């Protein structure tokens, strides 16, 4: 547990960096009676701590996105975007972040510096100026065909300064690649990452889990250690300002 004093110190330390203004401008017209989106009183800074809770699934460098409710990285039961498919199949977050950075509903993004190994955490700082904030986040479980742990628009605008909230991220299946669990298809085993061919259901669902070779999937190279259950990731969000 960090103390509020520590939080204040961190907040002060990063304020200078974050207030330089790399945010996107809000483009919603202010409604009467509410402050415009660029009011200093609506500036927020969030610290995001992401922890890998799985037994033996490294999580590819995560994409972290702070946005308004109008942005959504994916929808349950719908087709995956190409950018999300690239992340889910190959662990490459560049396209998803690039898409987000061109979206006017997105305030700020951050990229993981490397994969998050089991039990490890990574910290991110994001900022924006708005009356509504949601956090989305995604990283591939690298020993799956197209499984990714994600938050899909978690509300963080109720947080008071200094307060924290913890979310737990489930694992989704992008539906873009059949779950062969074969070494040649798993980036975590040196296999292929993104492939534009879609040979699965082509809609996003909760991942059915890893079967593994020992449990009877003949094409699988995975063992019992690669199995997982929900949730796969802990995400603690602290509002610094």
């Amino acid at each position: 547990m960090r103390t509020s004093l520590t939080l204040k110190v961190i907040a002060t330390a990063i304020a200078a960096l974050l207030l330089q203004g790399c945010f996107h401008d809000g483009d919603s017209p202010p409604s009467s009676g509410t402050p415009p989106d660029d009011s200093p009183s609506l500036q927020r800074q969030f610290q995001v701590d992401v922890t890998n809770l799985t037994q033996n699934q490294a999580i590819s460098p995560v994409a972290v996105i702070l946005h308004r409710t109008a942005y959504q990285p994916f929808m349950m039961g719908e087709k995956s975007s190409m950018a999300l498919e690239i992340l889910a199949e190959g662990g490459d977050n560049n396209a998803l972040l690039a898409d987000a950075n061109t979206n006017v509903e997105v305030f700020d993004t951050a990229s993981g510096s490397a994969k998050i190994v089991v039990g490890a955490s990574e910290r991110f700082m994001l900022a924006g100026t708005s009356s509504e904030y949601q956090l989305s986040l995604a990283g591939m479980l690298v020993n799956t065909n197209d499984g990714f742990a994600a938050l899909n628009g978690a509300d963080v605008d109720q947080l008071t300064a200094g307060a924290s909230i913890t979310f737990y991220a489930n694992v989704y299946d992008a539906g873009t690649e059949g779950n062969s669990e074969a070494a040649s298809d798993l980036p975590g085993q040196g296999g292929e990452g993104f492939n534009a061919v879609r040979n699965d259901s082509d809609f996003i669902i909760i991942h059915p889990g890893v079967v593994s070779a020992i449990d009877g999937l003949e094409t699988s190279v995975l063992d019992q250690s690669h199995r997982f259950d929900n949730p796969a990731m802990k995400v603690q969000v602290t509002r610094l300002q």
Partner: protein
Amino acid sequence: MKNKHLALLALGVLASAPAMAQDLDIKLTNLTHGIYFTPILSAAHDVNTHLFMAGSAASSNLQMMAEGGNISGLSSDVQAVSGDVVENPADGLLAPGASVSFNMMTNNSNTQLTLVTMLLPTNDGFVGLDSLELPTVAGTYTYYLNAYDAGTEANNEIVLDGSGATGVLGIPAAPGGNAGTGGGGLTATESNTTVHIHRGNLGDGDLNGGASDLNNGVHRWLNPVAQLVITVN
């Protein structure tokens, strides 16, 4: 967590104002990889009614739904206590990844929502929501539902025509067409005979034998198995 905040808010509103009729838009999405939902029962009722409770034995009407997808008994139970029901809004099966949207009007004292639908192919698995206190403040609320096991039938994972009838061991149908035949049967016993969280299908890779008729690459799932979005108008 937002849902929790909103639920608490709703509680406060309920405590200070009389319950009233509500106009709800409800959307249910199947989040599984290869499991179909049988006809759905959505029911609003008073606080004293439960169609099932985790840790308690299933009623015979719940068993009928969980083993064979027949919601008529549970629907009668709800209507007998002046509840509001929407039966079979998807007009049959709801496929993996598919959604159904429907409207529900609730009466004054029916402040709770229960939703059930059998999971196919399973022996006695169902999606369950037990007496959710309905939000009363206009807005959109999202919930995630788990898969329960009715505890009334051993999960032998053998597909057998006609086994939807109560007391006939087996899975009545595998709608996706990915199941096998000739399985030896996984188990003949059920350790927990109360309603509990389903342990999931096991399946195997042998379409012409093995222990299970189910397919380990198709018929497994992890919770949650459904997304429920309620819009209070």
